């Protein structure tokens, strides 16, 4: 008997991922501006979906308030840039600061259970929004623009933001991958399923949850900062809007909750749908709602969940597989 953590598919995946990454690095030399800008948005979506999935899918922490970190990430970027620091450096500092801030927040919020946690986060996001509104620099709902970015030529600016998003996404996904495969990853899933039992076998639930929470806060803040970089205007109402979390929920649940591949697939799908249909206005929104509804009703494990069970493939395995057993008619993916 041996423990296997990869499979034939995942090895292929590794090469594909590497190839895609290289392609994305080379892309700017021949892709159009539009392609690059849209890809930047896609990268940000993937970050957001992956971060929400980290919390909800692997940790069972359903938050309707991730826009708190998204908004704070953008706000902190504005504040730091205002101190005459390059916006691109500010992005990273901002995300780190928000990550730091999420530490005390987690101490409180993680004590809440299920529905209370979800709504509590929403309320917290609302508080964050109202407090940011009080900052004179932000001028209430008026907001402000990141005009410091105008110091870069349009071409190089586009390129920088593209790479910033690409690197952030790759870094966060890689980090998430290792986190999930680590001791903490399996512990988090155990906590999700039964906190008391996890405690009884020596898992420090509080600590593990806290790290996951902070990781997700950091990632989401980075997404917010990147979004600001590519959109330049900051209006509190927009950045602290519950709609961001709605998008995250949409992407993760359509893609596949609690599946590494699911979040990415969901982000891709959302992106494609948005690109193709957003122009249809009301009907696009109706369609989006309907897709979310139908998906949750008919593929509760998300599209990736369906693929996984039908075809028994895992591309990015984070679990453990015992090999050398007699086949059992029941077991999950061989």
């Amino acid at each position, binding site marked *: 008997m041996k423990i296997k953590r990869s499979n034939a598919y995942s090895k292929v995946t590794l090469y594909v991922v590497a190839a895609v990454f290289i392609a994305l690095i080379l892309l700017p030399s021949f892709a*159009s*501006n*539009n392609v690059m*800008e849209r890809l930047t*948005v896609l990268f940000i979506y993937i970050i957001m979906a992956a971060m929400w999935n980290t919390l909800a899918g692997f940790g069972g922490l359903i938050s309707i308030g991730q826009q708190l970190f998204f908004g704070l990430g953008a706000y902190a970027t504005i504040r730091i840039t205002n101190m005459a620091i390059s916006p691109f450096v500010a992005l990273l500092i901002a995300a780190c600061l928000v990550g730091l801030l999420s530490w005390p927040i987690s101490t409180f919020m993680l004590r809440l259970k299920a529905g209370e946690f979800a709504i509590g986060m929403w309320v917290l996001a609302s508080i964050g929004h*109202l407090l940011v*509104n009080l900052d004179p620099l932000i*001028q*209430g*709902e*008026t*907001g*402000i*623009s*990141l*005009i410091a*970015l*105008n110091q870069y030529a*349009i071409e190089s*600016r586009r390129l920088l933001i593209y790479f910033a998003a690409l690197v952030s996404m790759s870094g966060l996904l890689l980090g998430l991958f290792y986190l999930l495969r680590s001791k903490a990853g399996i512990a988090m899933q155990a906590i999700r399923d039964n906190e008391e039992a996890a405690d009884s076998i020596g898992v420090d639930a509080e600590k593990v949850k806290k790290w996951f929470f902070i990781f997700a806060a950091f990632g989401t803040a980075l997404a917010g900062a990147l*979004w600001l970089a590519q*959109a*330049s*205007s900051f*209006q509190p*109402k*927009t950045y602290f*809007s519950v*709609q961001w979390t709605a998008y995250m929920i949409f992407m993760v649940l359509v893609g596949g909750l609690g599946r590494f591949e699911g979040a990415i697939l969901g982000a891709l799908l959302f992106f494609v749908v948005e690109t193709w249909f*957003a*122009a249809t*206005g*009301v009907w696009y*929104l109706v369609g989006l709602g309907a897709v979310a509804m139908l998906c949750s009703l008919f593929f509760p494990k998300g599209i990736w969940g369906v693929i996984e069970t039908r075809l028994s493939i895992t591309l990015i395995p984070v679990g453990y597989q015992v090999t050398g057993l007699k086949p059992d008619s029941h077991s999950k993916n061989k």
Partner: protein
Amino acid sequence: AADDDTIRIGFISPRTGPLASFGKTDGFVLTQARQALANGMTVGGKHYQVEIIDRDSQSDPARASQLAKELINQDVDLMLAISTPEVINPVADASEAAGIPFMSTVMPWEAWYYGRGAKPGEESPFKWTYHFGFGAGEFYKTYISQWSLIDTNKKVGVMYPNDADGNAIRAVLAPRLAKAGYTVIDPGAYETGTSDFSSQIALFKREGVDIINSFPIPPDFAAFWRQSAQQGLHRQIKIIQIAKTGLFPSDIEVLGSLGPKIASAAYWHKTFPYTSPLTGLSGEQLADMWETETGEQWTQQLGATLSLLDAGTEALKQANDPLSRTAVRDAISQLNVTTIGGQVDFTSGPVPNVASGPIIGAQWVKGTGQFKLDYVITENVTDPNVPVTHKLLQYNTK
């Protein structure tokens, strides 16, 4: 633009979502504009086709910003955006970043200029983006003129929310009103979405204000004014002057018997004595066409949208080369034309990149025609060409 004889104009407005009442008439106005441009236009002796690519921001600033990028990447030669900071500012930022000539209207210019990071007294940070229309200065003139029409104790209770417009107005208007001899009673900026205004109402009652001046979004105003009535405040008020809400008849109709005699200020009115250079329509003609086509009452947004298209096409006409971004930008910076909404003059704005426009004192009164309410003009300091047709009625008389 890619092929040499098509000029592309990007146009972004809120057609759906919470701000949709602003964008309601846009489809109609765009049809008029497209008809007028069906045969293209001739600039500098060369004939061009003109294509207007319109997009719906769905009232979502994030989406507005994405749409702007999409249009920029479709090589628009001129970007237009209209109605509220939520739509205009993100599109302006995207255009500024990409170096695309941009023009907008219908929001106080202070929120546009300072709200996007410009600092008073410093050089304008904007090279590509321009805005025309009213600002706090016009509101000041209009209000002074409007409020002097009725004898009051000159005590004004103000309700300015903590948002773009509210802050811009508070900063500029309040000190000037004080200087002009008004006592400003300001309970402080409140947060949009507040549903109980008892503390403000109590203050206004205690201070015995005769005038109320407010800038809330429509649901907030409805809540505030109904609550004021419940607490008897409405009986003491001689002038209730609102802005931002009460722009469209439906905002006032929902107030029922509390609606008539609310004073407002209009950035456009169908009696404006101008014709659209683009379509050749007068204000009355435009409003009538809308009413016959849809059966609904005209709104001031009809003229505002058309004036933006007027100004945009005029700028293109005056550019040396309408397909050159710098040429179009230079044309805008020198623009001085009369649109259906009045004069747009970028050569003498209050700050660079801005041309000021009128805001005319008006009042909602019981309808005499087919609609429940009529919108009538009561003063005209900011554009004396506009005829004053009615006398301002005191709110608390029968």
